[in-house]
């Protein structure tokens, strides 16, 4: 206890020093290495800047940024339904994104009663669905961060995970290019021959050194012909390249869906469209979770609520950080361009632009190509809109890497990262409430780190007193929906013979059959989805993800959902309620 106070005192002194040099009048408070900021600023950027400045101080374990930058936030009224008792569970996981799903599946290996509470109608809806699906090596992260360690560890766990869950995973490898633009800060300061020497013979070894420290295999390639052989369409003035073989790709939502399916098969219960509204505590220990659908009794809560983790922590009275959403926009290109990109392509630029790894070009597991993402601070957690400026930024930045790639765009989309001000994952038991475990601030490389995070959570739960007895009948295997597009001729024939619906192609662009869509609907029901959304079908089958973006198949799929669920076609839901497809039935009397 004495130690903690000393640290807090040192922190107070340093923070006071920093805040004195800021134009605004900001109050602060430090408690158990958590910094609370109060005050008022004029612009949102100042709110972010101050938060990040404080968050970057060593030993700060969380920044709760209560600085007001605009009118006071309106608090949403939450209605707890106290009428219904939803059951008693050993662990309740809040949020069914990648992290929540991964932890659910990991915990399902033990004899425990586990529930996942998700406010959306389906898994993987907020942070987890919109990212580029890269399994990073860890080399791009800063040394000494928690996320770096977990990323390196997580990367190694993916082969087994992909095999068990039957998801598509490929180690495509990364090709990090060194070009004359790699060190812009010293470019004009040193003579050109020296600059080229540094680029060719010093920079690669700096990267290599870092790789050795992190134990990541890399290879420096100086032979230009070899680089072009690996990726024939890249920019011509490349000087050298660093090949990182462990980098891989997956479809993030495919992973989350597989994890939840497997977790459910092993006894986990999912409550969709259920919003957490409060917690029940006794002697500062979690004893229950209140939601808009009813009340749970529990001993442990895992807060993996992504963008809303800070709000959830607040409900438990243990807000130890503030999430500031950081939007990233990605552009998806047509399949026919797949030959332009064989690896993850990055143009090394040092020092790195702040707040992001900088994005990359990468093929997706379905042979499309992605450029991005960008990194923009946004005050709105729900903001997933795309702006023209961001598209221009992406084109300008990545267009340099593959200059001749035609811009056949299929779509663009944005996702929001749940960034914290300390720019690192916050994975630890709550400082002030027993039984409440934070898994917050899981932004990139969170997807890669996810399996390692889940293992870490097991360790934490053990330390916190949860008894973990391995289940004897845990089923690690899960089978994916058989995809017509990925099968051999013989397999296709066999499938159609058993189920003629495999022969009816619904999505022309991605070659998805009726049987796959029906199977997707059934699997959604199996994991407890109450509202079958069009998005859910899309993420499970890839229907509507091709070049026509569903203008042909969307209606046939709607018809199928309507048929399988016995609802009128126009009442189908696009993403979440209320987003009905149509606004009424004009031929109701003909039916």
């Amino acid at each position: 206890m004495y130690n903690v106070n000393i640290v807090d005192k040192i922190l107070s002194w340093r923070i006071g020093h920093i805040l004195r040099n800021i134009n605004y009048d900001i109050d602060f408070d430090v408690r158990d290495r958590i910094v609370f900021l109060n005050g008022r600023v004029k612009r949102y950027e100042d709110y972010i800047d101050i938060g990040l400045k404080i968050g970057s101080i060593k030993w700060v374990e969380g920044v709760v940024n209560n600085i007001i930058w605009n009118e006071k936030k309106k608090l949403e009224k939450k209605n707890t339904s106290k009428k219904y008792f939803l059951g008693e569970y050993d662990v309740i996981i809040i949020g069914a994104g990648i992290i929540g799903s991964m932890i659910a599946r990991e915990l399902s290996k033990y004899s425990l009663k586990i529930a996942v509470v998700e406010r959306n109608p389906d898994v993987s809806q907020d942070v987890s669905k919109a990212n580029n699906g890269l399994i990073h090596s860890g080399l791009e992260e800063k040394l000494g961060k928690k996320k770096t360690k977990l990323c390196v560890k997580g990367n190694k766990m993916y082969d087994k995970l992909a095999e068990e869950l039957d998801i598509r995973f490929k180690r495509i490898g990364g090709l990090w290019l060194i070009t004359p633009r790699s060190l812009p800060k010293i470019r004009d300061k040193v003579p050109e021959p020296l600059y080229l020497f540094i680029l060719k013979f010093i920079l690669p070894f700096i990267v290599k050194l870092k790789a050795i420290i992190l134990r990541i295999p890399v290879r420096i390639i100086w032979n230009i012909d070899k680089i072009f052989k690996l990726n024939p369409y890249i920019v011509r003035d490349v000087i050298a390249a660093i090949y990182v073989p462990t980098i891989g790709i997956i479809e993030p939502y495919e992973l989350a869906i597989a994890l939840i399916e497997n977790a459910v098969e092993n006894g986990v219960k999912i409550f969709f469209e259920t919003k957490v509204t409060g917690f029940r505590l006794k002697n500062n220990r979690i004893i229950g979770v209140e939601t808009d659908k009813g009340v749970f009794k529990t001993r442990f809560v895992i807060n993996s609520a992504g963008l809303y983790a800070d709000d959830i922590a607040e409900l438990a009275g243990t807000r130890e950080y503030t999430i500031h959403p950081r939007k990233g926009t990605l552009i998806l290109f047509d399949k026919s361009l797949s030959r332009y990109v064989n690896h993850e392509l990055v143009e090394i630029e040092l020092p790195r632009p702040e707040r992001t790894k900088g994005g990359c070009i990468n093929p997706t597991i379905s042979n499309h190509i992605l450029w991005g993402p960008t990194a923009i601070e946004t005050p709105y957690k729900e903001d997933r809109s795309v702006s023209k400026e961001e598209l221009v930024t992406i084109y300008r930045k990545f267009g340099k890497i593959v200059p001749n790639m035609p811009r056949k765009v299929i779509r663009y989309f944005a996702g929001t990262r749940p960034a914290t001000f300390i720019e690192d994952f916050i994975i630890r038991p709550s400082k002030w409430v027993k039984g409440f475990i934070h898994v917050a601030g899981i932004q990139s490389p969170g997807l890669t780190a996810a399996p390692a995070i889940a293992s870490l959570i097991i360790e934490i739960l053990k330390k916190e007193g949860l008894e973990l007895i391995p289940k004897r009948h845990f089923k690690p295997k899960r089978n994916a929906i058989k995809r017509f597009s990925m099968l051999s001729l013989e397999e296709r024939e066999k499938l159609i013979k058993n189920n003629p619906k495999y022969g009816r192609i619904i999505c022309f662009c991605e070659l998805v059959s009726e049987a796959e869509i029906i199977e997707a609907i059934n699997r959604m029901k199996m994991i407890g989805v109450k509202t079958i959304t069009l998005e859910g079908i899309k993420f499970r089958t890839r229907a509507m993800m091709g070049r026509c973006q569903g203008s042909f198949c969307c209606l046939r799929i709607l018809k199928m959902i309507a048929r399988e669920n016995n609802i009128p076609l126009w009442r189908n839901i696009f993403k979440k309620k209320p987003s009905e497809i149509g606004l009424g039935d004009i031929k109701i009397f003909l039916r």
Partner: protein
Amino acid sequence: MVVEKKYDLTIIGGGAAGLASAIRAGELNMDRIALIDSPPYVGKMLGGILPQCIHPGFGLHYFKEDLTGPEFAYRLIERLDKLDIDIFRDTYAYDMKATKDYCKIMTVNSSGITRILSRTVICATGARERNIFEIGVVGSRPAGIFTAGEAQALMDLFGVMPGRNIVIIGSGDIGLIMARRFALEGANVKAVIELMPWPGGLTRNVVQCLEDFNIPLLLSHIALRVLGKNRVEGIEIARVDESLKPIDGTEKIIKCDTIIVSAGIVPRIDLLEKVGALIDKTTNGPIVNDFLETSVPNIFAAGNVLVINDLVDYAAEQGEIAAESAAYIIHGGRIPHKNPIKIVLGKNVRLAVPQLLTGIRDTYIYIRVKKPMKNVYLYLNEIDIKIKLISIIPSELIRIFLRKEEISRIGNKILNISILG
């Protein structure tokens, strides 16, 4: 085991072009003909997109009568039923390979996979609609954004009302027709937005579908951004300058609950890409000669996959030409491939189909201009032909007929097409 079937001619696509070519092929004493169709929206119905086009304007050239889409399709289907043609309904052709003697088409339906070996193929796969991403509209992606064709199918095949307050992006014919359909069903069409300074559809549609219903047409306007969280709540638009760039300060928001994208259609060339047919960048369809043969011998193209037609009659006509060409091959004819005459796009010509001429047959040439013009001449300099055009617009294809005697006058294997005042 995969079923294998052999045909002289296989037609892929059962829309206007596909039906017309099947009928013509049947009339030309070809024995083994197959028609493969995979309807976009509804079960086993032939006719492509026609069944949902319940407005008139079909068949003025082909049947010399003004019909609706379903009527036009039904007349063709009735004629088709009398002929001996193998129809593969609700069957999707997912792969195509060209070998020396045969073209191999992989098809799938609920009874299994069939490998079709066909001596000739007519690709009549039609077009798909451009989506909101292809026209660069940013913002969020809530429910309530439809392509015009989707909205049409929803209303006229499924009886679902997509929305009440509508903004239509693009003034192509489908967009204009849909504006009227919405108005007739009692919806409020707030505006039709067109990037160009002229309407994208036929004049008759502008008058009958917009003016008659007091629907505002905003020319030289661009759709910038979609607003809305769960359902569309509005769209931000702006006026554009001559280089089609938005003018600062002219942005405004139109409140609506539904956005209809009618920004043109593009040929569905997936199968043609698989056999390596050369693609014309101006039409986005295959490069063909006057037999409508693609760069891959014995594979022909007709209808919207070849060039986006504004009249169904032209699509049907191309289907017939392709069928005649296939029959010519099957009956022992040969199409010369060496040294074709190249059509060169001159002033004010955006595209012309066919792109190559063998010179051994009479041919139609379909031409689209770059901008609206009045009292101009179409020049074919190499053969001294000059055609007066009183009024032309980009949305109406110009169709000219050239006799082989005329084509034979071309000396240097180049035919320049230009339109000048």
